[in-house]
């Protein structure tokens, strides 16, 4: 089979840089064009210096994009939806890493994004690009959405419990997410100024975070409640002293008495065949639970748990690299699903230790 020709739009950002890093070593992909509205004409490696001597491409303007097989959209939230038809006319498969097409319901979008979606009919067509949950749909998808980095960790961590119907939905689901600075994107602002950002443990969104909507959509579907989610979801996000990484700590109450062996069995069954999900729960050692530090650059999502039997409270920890399994790597995995390739193509980097 000839190589699939890919274009990347929004080429100056971090997720585009990660896509390039991964796709340059993908045996089935040829990177045809990289477009940028603000850096047209510059070499890719001038913006992504780790790619020097690996990529000789120069960024083109959006207007100079040609037809290709797949377009990845790496633009700021709210941008892709404004010109989505143009990109869909350029390529039969569009993968949008922004939040524009993550939600299926226009009502859910309105509630969490505070405005009407301009292409509500496309929301129903787009596939939430999480292969672990939507593998079959991805194989036929023409429009694939990226997934929120913190949402990805939380959903993967909690999915087996909701699918098995073990969650007491009359009690709150509490999700605390800690995230590194690269999740804020490549555009600097006052909050990312080094003297203020360095050393921060900053509660930047204790309530109202939009990734909550992805949890409601995906966990609600697994629980069989669809759009009728009633469980209290308390999601909070904290910026911590990492460049890359997400650690989600979710507290959920079970609806029956279980011991940890049952939880082990449940997670083992759910993820035994998943190439990028690892269970991390060790009795001793330093890395007893998921730790984003050793996942930097990899497409893994590590998941662990501990049960407080007295309260039926299960604490689920999930860690990933926000730019890889939380964005570009997950998008490449979705691409692999879409074309029926081995899902690990381009994604075999195991991370570093020590780092």
């Amino acid at each position, binding site marked *: 089979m000839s190589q699939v020709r890919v274009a990347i739009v929004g080429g100056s950002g971090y997720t585009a840089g990660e896509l390039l890093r991964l796709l340059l070593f993908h045996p089935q992909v040829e990177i045809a064009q990289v477009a940028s509205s603000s850096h047209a004409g510059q070499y890719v490696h001038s913006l992504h210096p780790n790619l020097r001597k690996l990529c000789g491409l120069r960024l083109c303007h959006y207007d100079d994009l040609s037809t290709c097989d797949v377009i990845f959209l790496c633009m700021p939230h709210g941008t892709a939806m404004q010109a989505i038809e143009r990109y869909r006319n350029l390529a039969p498969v569009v993968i949008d890493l922004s939040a524009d097409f993550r939600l299926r319901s226009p009502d859910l979008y309105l509630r969490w994004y505070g405005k009407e979606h301009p292409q509500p009919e496309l929301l129903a067509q787009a596939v939430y690009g999480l292969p672990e949950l939507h593998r079959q749909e991805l194989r036929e998808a023409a429009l694939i959405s990226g997934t929120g980095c913190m949402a990805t960790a939380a959903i993967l961590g909690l999915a087996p419990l909701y699918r098995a119907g073990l969650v007491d939905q009359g009690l709150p689901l509490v999700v605390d997410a800690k995230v590194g600075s690269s999740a804020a994107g490549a555009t600097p602002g006052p909050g990312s100024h080094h003297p203020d950002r360095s050393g921060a443990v900053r509660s930047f969104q204790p309530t109202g975070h939009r990734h909550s909507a992805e949890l409601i959509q995906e966990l609600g579907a697994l629980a069989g409640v669809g759009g009728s989610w009633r469980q209290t979801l308390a999601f909070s996000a904290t910026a911590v002293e990492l460049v890359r990484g997400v650690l989600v700590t979710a507290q959920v109450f079970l609806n029956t008495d279980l011991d940890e*062996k049952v939880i*082990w069995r449940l997670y083992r069954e759910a993820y035994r065949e998943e190439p990028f999900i690892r269970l991390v729960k060790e009795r*001793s050692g330093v890395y007893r639970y998921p730790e984003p530090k050793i996942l930097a650059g990899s497409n893994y999502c590590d998941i662990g748990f501990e049960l407080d039997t007295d309260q039926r409270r299960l604490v689920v920890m999930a860690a990933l690299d926000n730019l890889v399994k939380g964005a570009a790597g997950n998008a490449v995995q979705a691409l692999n699903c879409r074309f029926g390739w081995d899902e690990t193509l381009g994604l075999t980097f195991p991370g570093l230790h020590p780092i």
Partner: protein
Amino acid sequence: MSKLVALCPECEAEIDLQNRLVGEIVYCPDCNAELEVTNLEQPAVALAPRVEEDWGE
């Protein structure tokens, strides 16, 4: 030939006891529990005693 496999008492992972001896210490591949081989006729392991780690609690 039947497999010589015990279940980890901590997480129920399969522990391969091929070429092991009773009393030998083995480790669970999933939860890293330190386990003592207690029986090879009816394959079994038990959690080995351990020194608690101090995590500054």
